[in-house]
């Protein structure tokens, strides 16, 4: 794989992307974090580790994922304005387990194996990271415990059952808002208690260094593939990349290879819930301020006293009051743009994508579709866009039925 060299030095040795990132954890966790950093640095340059990872990525995960021209969505965008940019989907929803999350799990759990750790813990929101972790743990013969907010357990039922089928133990978290951030608190508590034997597999580009850079590196395969694929299909780089943002891993994975290509616009779409002005949203960059949470300094939703505010999104995977530190840095530098989409927009475009493209997108990338259409119209017919279709929507059908007022559970358990 040809990797650009200019952006391989981020972050600095303290895990800082400019002012963001770092290692804000209790002393108990500092030694294991330093151990992880050293183990990852070794593995990263070990051809045997890379070969094993490549093997699993090809034969188990199913990479490379296709780059697909979404022709009917492009036509739809062109209908209103007369011309629209060509929209491509990077089809990471076709990976084993149905989302980009497994790219990272594959990398981290092979690293855990190398470090001799057999007890894996993870936090999950939508359940996709939990399912991916449970899957790889099963394959590698490891014990797996997944922390999940009680609210998310209700709205992502199919994934909870899948994790159990895969042999993982799902532990419900009732504290706080009982969503992703609380699951992360609980996972950190587990780690602090069982530190010697446990490997904490974080699901996004957040947390203490080295997680943001390590998860980015494991997800960067998305952008490296996309770059080669668009060159082959169109003979040039795209004008814009669009991806939804929870913690920011699918977005960083797509963006990373293109960061040095300053003519390529990088556009992240945060969850605006019921509207950024309503206060009920999960748009940390659009509506937040810098602070310290979960091991890193980054943009957070918080009140005037530094208490973390509740995030709101119809999508469990985006329902998080923070964002990875590299995004905070790209935002401040002006290298990436961050916009948002509401619950209603996501629901509407979920349905549009299903009917026009025959793809049920997850609720998370459903947020990226409306902004992709906007940019397609803005660029006109000479333009070229890649949107990360980072997950499939099977897990969301109950939530969507509920939002549309349909009772699809009737007759199955009643």
């Amino acid at each position: 794989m040809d990797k650009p060299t200019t952006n391989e030095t981020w972050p600095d040795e303290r895990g800082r992307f400019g002012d963001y990132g770092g290692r804000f954890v209790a002393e108990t966790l500092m030694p294991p974090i330093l151990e992880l950093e050293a183990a990852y640095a070794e593995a990263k340059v070990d051809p045997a580790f890379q070969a094993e990872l490549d093997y699993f990525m090809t034969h188990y995960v199913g990479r490379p994922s296709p780059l697909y021209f979404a022709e009917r969505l492009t036509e739809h965008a062109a209908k209103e304005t007369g011309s629209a940019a060509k929209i491509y989907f990077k089809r990471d929803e076709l990976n084993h387990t149905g989302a980009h999350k497994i790219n990272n799990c594959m990398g981290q759990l092979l690293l855990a194996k190398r470090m001799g750790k057999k007890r894996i813990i993870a936090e999950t929101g939508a359940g996709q990271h939990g399912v991916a972790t449970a899957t790889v743990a099963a394959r590698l013969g490891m014990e797996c415990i997944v922390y999940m907010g009680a609210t998310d357990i209700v709205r992502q039922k199919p994934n909870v059952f899948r994790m159990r089928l895969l042999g993982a133990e799902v532990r419900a978290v009732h504290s706080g808002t009982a969503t992703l951030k609380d699951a992360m608190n609980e996972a950190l508590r587990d780690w602090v208690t069982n530190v010697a034997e446990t490997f904490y597999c974080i699901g996004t580009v957040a947390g203490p260094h080295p997680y943001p850079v390590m998860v980015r590196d494991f997800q960067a395969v998305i952008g490296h593939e996309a770059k080669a694929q668009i060159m082959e299909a169109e003979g040039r780089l795209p004008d814009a990349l669009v991806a939804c943002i929870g913690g920011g891993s699918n977005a960083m994975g797509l963006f990373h290879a293109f960061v040095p290509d300053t003519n390529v616009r990088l556009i992240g779409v945060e969850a605006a819930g019921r509207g950024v002005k309503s206060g009920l949203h999960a748009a940390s960059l659009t509506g937040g301020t810098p602070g310290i949470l979960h091991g890193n300094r980054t943009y957070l939703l918080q009140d005037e006293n530094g208490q973390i505010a509740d995030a709101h999104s119809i999508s469990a995977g985006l329902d998080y009051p923070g964002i990875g530190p590299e995004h905070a840095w790209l935002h401040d530098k002006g290298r990436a743009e961050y916009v948002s989409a509401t619950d209603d927009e996501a629901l509407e475009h979920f349905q549009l994508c299903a009917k026009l493209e025959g793809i049920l997108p997850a609720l998370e990338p459903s947020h990226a579709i409306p902004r992709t259409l906007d940019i397609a119209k803005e660029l006109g017919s000479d333009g070229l866009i890649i949107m990360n279709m980072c997950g499939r929507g099977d897990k969301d059908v109950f939530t969507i039925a509920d939002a549309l007022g349909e009772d699809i559970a009737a007759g199955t358990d009643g």
Partner: protein
Amino acid sequence: MSTRIEQIFAKGRPAFVAYIMGGDPDLATAQDVMNALPGAGVDIIELGFPFTDPMADGPVIEDAGIRARKAGTTLASVIGMARTFRETDQSTPIILMGYANPVYHMGYEAFSELASKAGVDGAIIVDLPPEEDGPLREAMDSKGMSLIRLATPTTDAKRLPKVVSGSSGFVYYVSMNGVTGGALASGGSVREQVARVKHASKLPVVVGFGVRTPERAAEIARDADGVVVGTAIVQALHQDGKDAALALVRSLSDATHTAK
């Protein structure tokens, strides 16, 4: 001129350190309890300030923080408790304890200014390890306050000297891996662990996490310069009220003071 903290350890007997959550269940009640602690034998007060995401705390202290926040408690109002306390007590050290974000949000300089004016002696910030505590340490240093560091069982021999060298006032040894109120103390000796820390630092070493009973407090006080109890006191206050909590504090401090 010696600091309030130094004067406590100069007494030559093990110190008893009590943790309460500021503003739990409300500011007035917490103030009453705080003001009564020295009379129940407390040498140093650790005054918690609440945070929404207390990653190193168990359910008892997390719930105390939730009650405090419901009552409107903020970092500034907890510092206000210290100020009120200082009106009647000039000798008992007050150490603020909590998480980084409320302090960061207030601003390290502004925090140090406000806290030192209120008569606060130091702070323990759980999620600021040595790698990240430089800016706050400088701000607090310039106001004559101590930033107290934590050493833990995972702090290995290579790391320990670096951890303790930047501490001031005392070193807080967390005697087990886990969250506050987690496992009951195993009952084993902490002598070797305390000796390990003392070998690396001249500062007094206080030991906390998992201490709930006078017997266990006495056992630890035989080997350490001080004992910290938090969860048991917070729980007694919540379940049985102020008098019961103070009675527990009295029994813990007596056991600590007479251990050697």
